[in-house]
């Protein structure tokens, strides 16, 4: 049985260590905030200029001028700070953000990441994705193992335009957890009931176990 979306998000939350500065990408990674274990105290960074981001507000607390990078209303926890975009990206580029958990379209086994565009299909711009991928001290990608067309999103070499090269440390999919190994992925954990054959069949690159 492969992992559900919630299982994947929970597994990604286990990557977060106490005391870290963490940036969660838009989409599925945002939900990691809901599963950070008790006793793990982190400051969430939102690249639009907020460190110490809290949960969504109560209806009566909603503030149009307190949003995250996905333009959702959020709150600020005690100890939070706000700042301009240049300082926000100085935090990212300067290596002051310990962990970024990002969505992915393709990850190559050498750590190259594609997650910002599909030529002719997805035209949104890169936003902060390239800075986060290139700048965060550790990049973990949370994505499905295959695209909707059934193609593996874990590949030997990217077919999509890269976001950053050699930046990804680990990929979490519904089948398991995979570390980049240069010319292969190393499967370090698998979802219950998933065997080697299924992982090999589903992965567009060499896998070691």
């Amino acid at each position, binding site marked *: 049985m492969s992992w559900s979306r919630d299982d994947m998000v929970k597994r990604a939350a286990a990557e977060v260590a106490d005391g870290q500065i963490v940036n969660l990408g838009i989409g599925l990674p945002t939900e990691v905030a809901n599963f950070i274990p008790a006793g793990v105290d982190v400051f969430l960074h939102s690249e639009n200029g907020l460190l110490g981001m809290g949960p*969504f507000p109560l*209806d009566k607390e909603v503030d149009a*001028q*307190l949003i995250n990078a996905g*333009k959702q209303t959020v709150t600020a926890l005690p100890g939070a700070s706000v700042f301009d975009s240049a300082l926000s990206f100085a935090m990212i580029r300067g290596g002051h953000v310990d962990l970024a958990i990002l969505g992915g379209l393709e990850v190559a086994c050498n750590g190259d990441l594609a997650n910002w565009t599909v030529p002719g299909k997805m*035209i949104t711009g890169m*936003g902060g994705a390239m*800075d986060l991928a*290139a700048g965060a001290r550790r990049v973990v990608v949370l994505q499905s193992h295959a695209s909707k067309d059934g193609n593996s999103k874990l590949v030997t070499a990217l077919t999509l335009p890269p976001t950053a090269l050699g930046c990804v440390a680990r990929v979490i999919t519904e089948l398991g957890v995979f570390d980049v190994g240069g010319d292969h992925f190393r499967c370090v954990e698998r979802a219950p009931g998933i065997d080697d054959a299924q992982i090999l069949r589903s992965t567009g690159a060499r896998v070691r176990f």
Partner: protein
Amino acid sequence: MKPKVYPNVDAALDGLADGMSIMSGGFGLSGNAEACIEAIARRGVKGLTIISNNCGNQGQGLAVLLKNRQVRKVNCSFIGGNPDLAEQYLAGEIEVELNPQGTFAERIRAGGAGIGGFFTPTGAGTTVAEGKETRVIDGRLQVFEKPLRADLAIVRAAVGDHFGNLRFYRTSRNFSPLMATAGKLTIAEVDRLVPTGTLDPDDIHLPGLFVQRIVHVPEHKNVIEFRTTRDGAKRDGGKP
């Protein structure tokens, strides 16, 4: 000293002309200089270059200028959620220069700070680096990025005094203080206008020398793109 406070945004926008480059603060529809944007739309100036992270969204904010066909070029980082921009871009009717968001912010900072450009690892090995000088610095491939300036910068601040000292509120700060430094002419629309000397020097986010014109705009729409709450329903795109 020549007074900087103008009675309304139309007066403050004196000199606005076709073909100008305009920096506009805000992240999506949050923290926009709403009154200035509406006035630019009313004036109907054409051939504008808009330098803004999103150039409006959901048909609102700067997207109104797109609908009015007032914009020749957009310099931004993200166009998701902006169907007007995507449509005109795909039809080849508008030029779009996409920047990584941190590079975009730093280009504006460099413009305002008199820096001739900078090398950044962001975008190395990607389409962003095409046609740009690259260099390996401390073992890492980096891309040369040039500064950005504009004829006009429009920003919203929570509090301003008569000299133009500004304080921003929460995540409405974003690109605004940077853009204020990089505009040849910077207009600040402030929620609250206070006498000079009211703000404590330690509490000023942007010193007033960067602001040439100030307008008191007490009411803003404060559009929320995604109203997310933990006790109520998720009402995307709702009004506050």
